[in-house]
């Protein structure tokens, strides 16, 4: 593979301390941590859509925030375009963020309710001294047309609450693109949208990717949606990646029992294809005290003794260098 990596993540960890009461702290003296991200390695290649999928509590969102350095890692490194982000000063990091932008799930929460839509979209131009006044307005209007926020000159002066959900999410996308970033971290960007709007937003994101030469980190819990946008995908469980590969490899030939269960669990919109596969018992355990060995072993129908003793490493599936899986039984 000669493709260049835009982002390289190595041994990334984020532990959040558990808040305790004063008395409890005196009594136990033991500090506990939520192992939100507990040692993940992956790379995002230039121009691809890299999916990060998992259930709530798997650490996918924290991983996205770590890449943007919105939270500081406990351990590990993140390299963006060959620059080690941890080595950057706050000011250098701030400038670096021109090249990495975020789209979040709730477009209502991520837009200032007192700021006109157009001003919000163009705010970053002012912050980074790229353009202001008439020039800013011109650039914003042009971007609004690109993302389908039309008639742009009318919507420019609307406040977020005057826009529909789909329009708000388009505004958030437009805002993320204003500085022509290289990487977009999209955290559940369409989860709030209605079914008929979702397809439109996905199509828009793919079209903009071509136009602006973007690379996406697409974070989602919805494997059915991920199928339509991702090139490669990593499945996370309890702070670790359990399987990563191309969409084809992971969806058509899932190796990890967790990936298999996750794929089987997605309800299919076809009554002829009702699910018959049994589901793993129980729910995702607490990330404060993750199970030893393979984190999935207490729920895994195939677990053997070794699974409860040794954590499996992420290794290539025999005969398939690009497809990695962390399971003793493969």
């Amino acid at each position: 593979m000669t493709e260049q990596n835009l982002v390289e993540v190595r041994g990334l960890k984020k532990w959040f301390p558990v808040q305790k009461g004063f008395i409890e702290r005196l009594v136990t003296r033991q500090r506990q941590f939520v192992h939100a991200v507990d040692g993940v390695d992956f790379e995002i290649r230039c121009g691809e859509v890299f999916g990060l999928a998992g259930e709530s509590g798997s650490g996918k969102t924290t991983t996205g925030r770590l890449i943007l350095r919105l939270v500081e890692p406990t351990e590990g490194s993140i390299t963006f375009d060959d620059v080690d982000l941890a080595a950057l000063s706050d000011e250098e990091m701030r400038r670096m963020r021109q090249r990495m932008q975020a789209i979040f799930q709730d477009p209502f929460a991520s837009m200032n309710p007192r700021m006109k839509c157009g001003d919000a979209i163009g705010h970053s131009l002012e912050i980074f001294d790229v353009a202001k006044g008439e020039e800013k307005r011109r650039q914003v209007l042009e971007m609004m047309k690109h993302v389908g926020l039309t008639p742009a000159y009318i919507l420019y002066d609307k406040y977020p609450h005057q826009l529909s959900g789909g329009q708000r999410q388009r505004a958030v996308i437009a805002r993320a693109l204003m500085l022509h970033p290289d990487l977009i971290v999209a955290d559940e960007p369409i989860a709030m949208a209605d079914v008929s709007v979702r397809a439109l937003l996905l199509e828009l994101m793919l079209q903009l990717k071509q136009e602006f030469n973007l690379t996406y980190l697409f974070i989602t819990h919805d494997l059915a949606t991920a199928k339509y946008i991702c090139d490669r995908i990593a499945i996370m469980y309890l702070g670790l990646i359990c399987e990563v590969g191309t969409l084809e490899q992971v969806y058509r030939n899932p190796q990890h029992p967790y990936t298999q269960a996750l794929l089987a669990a997605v309800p299919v919109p076809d009554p002829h294809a009702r699910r018959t596969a049994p589901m793993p018992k129980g729910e995702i355990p607490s990330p404060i005290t993750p199970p030893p060995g393979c984190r999935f072993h207490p729920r895994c129908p195939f677990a053997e003794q070794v699974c409860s003793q040794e954590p499996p490493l992420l290794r290539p599936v025999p005969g398939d260098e690009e497809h990695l899986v962390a399971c003793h039984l493969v």
Partner: protein
Amino acid sequence: MSEPVLQIHNLSVDYPTHVGVVRAVDDVSLTVYRGEVLGLVGESGCGKSTLGMAILRLLRPPGKIAGGEIVFDEHNLLGLDDEAMRRLRGAHISMIFQDPMTCLNPLQRISDHVVETIRTHQPEVSEQEARRQATELIDRLGIMAERLDDYPHQLSGGMRQRIMIGLALALNADLIIADEPTTSLDVIVEAQFLDLLKDLQRRFNLTIVLITHNIGVIAELSDRVAVMYAGKLVELADVYPLFDDPLHPYTRGLLNSVPNISLTEDHLQIMSGSPPDLINPPPGCKFHPRCPRAMDRCRVEEPPVKEVQPGRWAACWLYE
């Protein structure tokens, strides 16, 4: 077909706002038969949740029922006084909501919830007997009996949702209205919950109105499906013909725009436009501005719900 449990005739619900009246449910007629799962599907704002709340007369003011009839057990619910309605809720018609955390009292143990539910409606049942029933119930839900004395926050999201269905079953309600029961759950937990619901439904011949935007969940569980758009019922049919050959262009568009993990195609079909503003709905068929097959008539005249084929109803001029 078996006997009807619930019959809704020409029901309309209005929400007066300062800019005009929103007709959230517009002249909807539906029958729910004993032992069936009726899926009620549509996008946000189509009126499906409002319809569910209207059945239990739990509409939040200023929402009000503007017309129609809801017949349950030979009574028109709209004619009952508040006390009779209160006795009916929970005992005869139960509801499961989307977010179990906000529906369970954080200061009450799970056992208190169940015991209170039973004894409110059946005061003759002793505390002990109610507790015994609660233990039996929780076992049926696949939750260990020792969790009975836990508080809601000690349970996982999936368990809390199981408790909600348990509360709905506690009094053997004739009808369960489940409003987005799996939307707050992760996909594996959702699948577990659907398995449980399917199993209970079969064992106890439950009658369920399943309200959801998730078409996969509808396909998984429903016997019949009602599709709503902009407050209107646009199509009603058995689940198989509805998915195999949808009649209404909206149903067709909706089904085509749903991501399907089991197919190999990598493009979603796109439905243009978005649902109308219900303060100023378009004249004629409310779907006509987005409809690929709209005709002149659709723009002026509203199509009635018609039985197009036996057991298949649609509101569309294409089937005139």
